[in-house]
């Protein structure tokens, strides 16, 4: 039997390889890869389920007052009673988060490339970036509301600001991680700098970029919600703030739950994309080839 974790290479070339003791296997399909991914990540789901059971247990045994910690049942009831309400606000936050995340990636990658090309630019931009990172977003968010009003603008801006830094840092590290001998080889091949960038530097930087993207994805959710806290009439941050004012803990918990799920979902999507795009990377290899039994 051939174990399914075996890393397989393309081709239907069983015959050519056999003489040298190499038999090729066909590349796993999308479904198979997704299956493999689920199989590898069942543990976190199990942990989540356990937490859930603990939550249910604590409230069912009435260890805390229901107005402090509502039961899972009450929380889901809160959602079931007003599905459009939750759907609408979740959608708003999702929109802000995804847009902020995408803008952060675009701006971050471009900034990183520019900084790696020119050390003057790097020296100029780095302190600015650091400043933008260390300044508490919750403190400047009100300013954005003053500038941009109560619409989506300030929320997206805060999401961008929070997600941007990990993208730049990881991309700069990635672009600089290329083996100098590889670059020397490239110049003996007469490569133009554009060729060296697209064929060597950029692909080599992707594993680093993706580890930054995973941090950035969760930051973007936080950013959007922070933006909503400061001034909004829509979004999960608004829901939580409103529920807080009404001491409506089931709705508050529902908002928190959806928000966390949103962050996790975005993270998982990024991780899945990484798996899809970088199967060659050491951290992504399915434990290499396993021996056949």
């Amino acid at each position, binding site marked *: 039997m051939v174990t399914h974790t075996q*890393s397989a*290479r*393309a*081709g239907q*070339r069983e015959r*050519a*390889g056999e*003489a*040298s003791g*190499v038999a*090729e296997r066909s590349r796993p399909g999308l479904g198979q890869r997704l299956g493999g991914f689920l199989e590898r990540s069942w543990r976190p789901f199990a942990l989540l389920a356990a937490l859930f059971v603990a939550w249910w247990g604590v409230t069912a045994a009435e260890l805390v007052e229901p107005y402090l910690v509502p039961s899972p049942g009450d929380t889901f009831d809160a959602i079931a009673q007003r599905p459009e309400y939750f759907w609408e606000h979740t959608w708003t936050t999702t929109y802000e988060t995804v847009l902020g995340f995408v803008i952060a990636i675009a701006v971050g990658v471009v900034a990183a490339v520019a900084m790696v090309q020119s050390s003057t630019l790097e020296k100029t931009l780095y302190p600015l970036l650091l400043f933008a990172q260390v300044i508490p977003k919750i403190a400047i968010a009100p300013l954005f509301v003053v500038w941009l009003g109560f619409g989506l603008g300030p929320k997206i801006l805060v999401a961008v600001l929070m997600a941007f830094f990990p993208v730049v840092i990881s991309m700069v590290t990635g672009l600089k991680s290329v*083996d100098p*001998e*590889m670059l*020397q*080889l*490239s*110049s*003996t*091949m*007469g*490569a133009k700098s554009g*060729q060296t960038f697209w*064929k*060597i530097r950029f*692909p*080599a930087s992707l594993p680093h970029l993706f580890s930054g993207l995973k941090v950035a994805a969760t930051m973007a959710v936080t950013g959007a919600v922070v933006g909503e806290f400061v001034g909004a009439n829509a979004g999960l941050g608004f829901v939580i703030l409103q529920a807080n004012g009404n001491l409506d803990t089931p709705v508050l918990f529902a908002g928190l739950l959806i928000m966390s799920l949103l962050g996790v979902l975005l993270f998982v999507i990024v991780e899945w994309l990484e798996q899809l795009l*970088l199967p*060659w*990377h*050491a951290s992504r*290899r399915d434990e*290499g*080839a396993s021996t056949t039994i």
Partner: protein
Amino acid sequence: MAGYAVEIDDVTVRFRSKKRDVTALTDVTMRVEPGEFVSIVGPSGCGKSTLLKLSSGLLPASTGDVRLFGEPVNGPRKDIGYVFQKAALLEWRSARKNILLQAEMRKMPAKEAAARADELIEMTGLSGFEDALPHELSGGMQQRVALCRALLHRPPVLLMDEPFGALDALTREQMNVELRRIWQETGTTVLLVTHSIAEAVYLSDQVVMISARPGTVAGVVDVNLPVERDYGPTMAEPEFAKATRHIRDHLGAAAAAE
């Protein structure tokens, strides 16, 4: 004037950094005939890698002249192939695509490049591994891929910097035999840096000995072995023993004099 493949004329290389100046090479003069196989041996840090980088134009000489086929070298040269100790393969590309990187960068006609790649894959015994990613290949296989990549454009000069240094002894011997055969088949000029005196003598027409820092040419040994060199019998030749002993004495004496 275009008589020599590689000419290094009275070259000095100094590295200048904030902390200190290092003179890596001084007064180095050497000439390599087209089609010749020349090895460079010497203690660590004596400037062997610097010498190859100089020949390829990756490093400028502080003083002196470097010429390839009579043409002054200033800036990286395209008419060479380079192999490093690390295979330096792109880990997301298959063996074949790594070899073809050379063609892509040079914008060689795709058909011609593919045919040449097939030929080299066959020649180096990589058949059956074309689609493997670097991490799926052994060290010896990876180095074969690097060699194919360096030979794809039929460079008149091949520069190799301790290409087999990371391989086990047996694989290394095997690669020596293959390199000798490939050199004979391609007729390219080879400059090989190595730590192994046996490797240098088995493969070369000439062995250049470099002394410790600052590196300079301490002597040249002509290897008078026949063109056809079967590994075992060659090792047993009196000429082989003579050449290796000569080099060992020379390098040993240089080290003792320090």
